[in-house]
């Protein structure tokens, strides 16, 4: 029925599935999740700085977004891991990767969050101020919960990109799923099929994320008319 080559490839794919999945679950997924959470906090701070009206804060935020968006993630990781040691700062692969990815998420997502905050009608700020809330209270209780709803789709885009971008961590010695795929390729000489298998696992992860996105959109949007 199947020729030798086919049988061989099927075996390779079967044997490699668990190691790949394991790398995905122990490295790719936690790396993406941790970086995304830290990145979101950074993005929030950056977005608030951008709209703070304080020139210095705005300038710093702008500069940060400009540098990070303007240069390749791989180079940023390189600088953190191979460049900083020259300045006496030695960061391990895991924290280095988390710092790099968080900085990246922080820059891109800050633009999303800024736009989302600005999209909330001014009347909401005023209504909240008029009951006597402070800036932080208004932000936390009134504005951010509403901004969250608007920003779920673009943030989901960012998260899904991040999951795949974590493969760059291999350049700084972190063996994530893609690298495991390449290892197996090195011994089996079937890059295309391995890549397809890796892509399939990414697709699984991203499908879960898309579901989560739909769930969040529905949950956060329960108070608006469809």
């Amino acid at each position, binding site marked *: 029925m199947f020729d030798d080559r086919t049988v061989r490839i099927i075996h390779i794919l079967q044997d490699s599935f668990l190691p790949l999945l394991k790398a995905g679950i122990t490295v790719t997924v936690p790396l993406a999740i941790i970086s995304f959470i830290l990145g979101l906090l950074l993005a929030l701070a950056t977005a608030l700085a951008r709209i703070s009206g304080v020139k210095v804060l705005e300038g710093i935020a702008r500069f940060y977004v400009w540098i990070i968006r303007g240069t390749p993630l791989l180079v940023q990781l390189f600088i953190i891991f191979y460049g900083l040691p020259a300045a006496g700062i030695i960061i391990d692969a895991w924290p280095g990767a988390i710092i790099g990815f968080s900085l990246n998420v922080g820059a891109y997502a800050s633009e999303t969050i800024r736009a989302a905050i600005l999209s909330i*009608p001014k*009347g*909401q700020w*005023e*209504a*909240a*101020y*008029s*009951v*006597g*809330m*402070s*800036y932080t*209270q208004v932000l936390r*209780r*009134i504005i951010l*919960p*509403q901004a969250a*709803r608007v920003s779920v789709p673009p943030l989901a885009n960012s998260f899904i990109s991040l999951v795949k971008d974590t493969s760059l961590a291999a350049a700084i010695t972190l063996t994530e799923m893609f690298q495991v795929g390449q290892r197996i390729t090195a011994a089996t000489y079937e890059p295309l099929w391995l890549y397809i298998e890796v892509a399939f696992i990414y697709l699984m992860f991203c499908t879960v994320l898309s579901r989560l996105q739909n769930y969040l959109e529905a949950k*956060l949007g*329960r*108070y*608006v*008319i469809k």
Partner: protein
Amino acid sequence: MIKIKELYKSFGEAQILKGINLEVAKGETTVIIGPSGSGKTTLLRCINLLEIPTSGFVSVASKALAFKEGVQHTQKDIIELRKNTGMVFQGFHLFPHMTVLENVMEGQITVLKRSKDAAREMALSLLNKVGLKEKSLAYPYQLSGGQQQRVAIARAMAMEPAVLLFDEPTSALDPELAVEVLKVMKDLAQEGMTMVVVTHKMSFARDVANKVVFVDGGLILEEGSPEQIFSNPKHERTKLFLSMLDD
């Protein structure tokens, strides 16, 4: 209850309020009328400090602040004065992500630091008063405009302010829905709430107001009892304006 002296407000070059003097006694209802752009909204916003006056003196209940160019008051002072007022907006501005009940509880919990239970009890009794107790668990989008505005009134009252400010509370509503909001406001006036209302509902002014103030070009042109203003306006400008309102 409210005392405003020589209130000036400019946006950039444009001077909008040009020396307003106004007093509102406790328990009284003052209606402000005037052409579009005359500064009615700006005046109300200066009373609860959503806009910071360029100069002048504002006092509400026990709290007073004087404004001058170059002098900045602390966030704390501003919030303290603001707490003495409640504001009801033309566009309602309910918090869309909270239920009706949560809308009315929110300020009580975050600002007045009431317990959840106390806040809920207060909220329910106010919602009952505006006839919306059974809508407690609805979201704002599920309510008609008139119902939303009544929730907004309950939300403002929950902070137990000394004064309620209304900025054209019914102008976004169909006549039918306006009726229910005006009724709630009338009840409040009769219970002795101090209120300042910007409105063009002349029947409300006639029935409820203790004083009608006509604002034009950032100044109070004329003030007096409703009869005085409506039947016997002193100024040509007032007469002309009133002639446009006759339905």
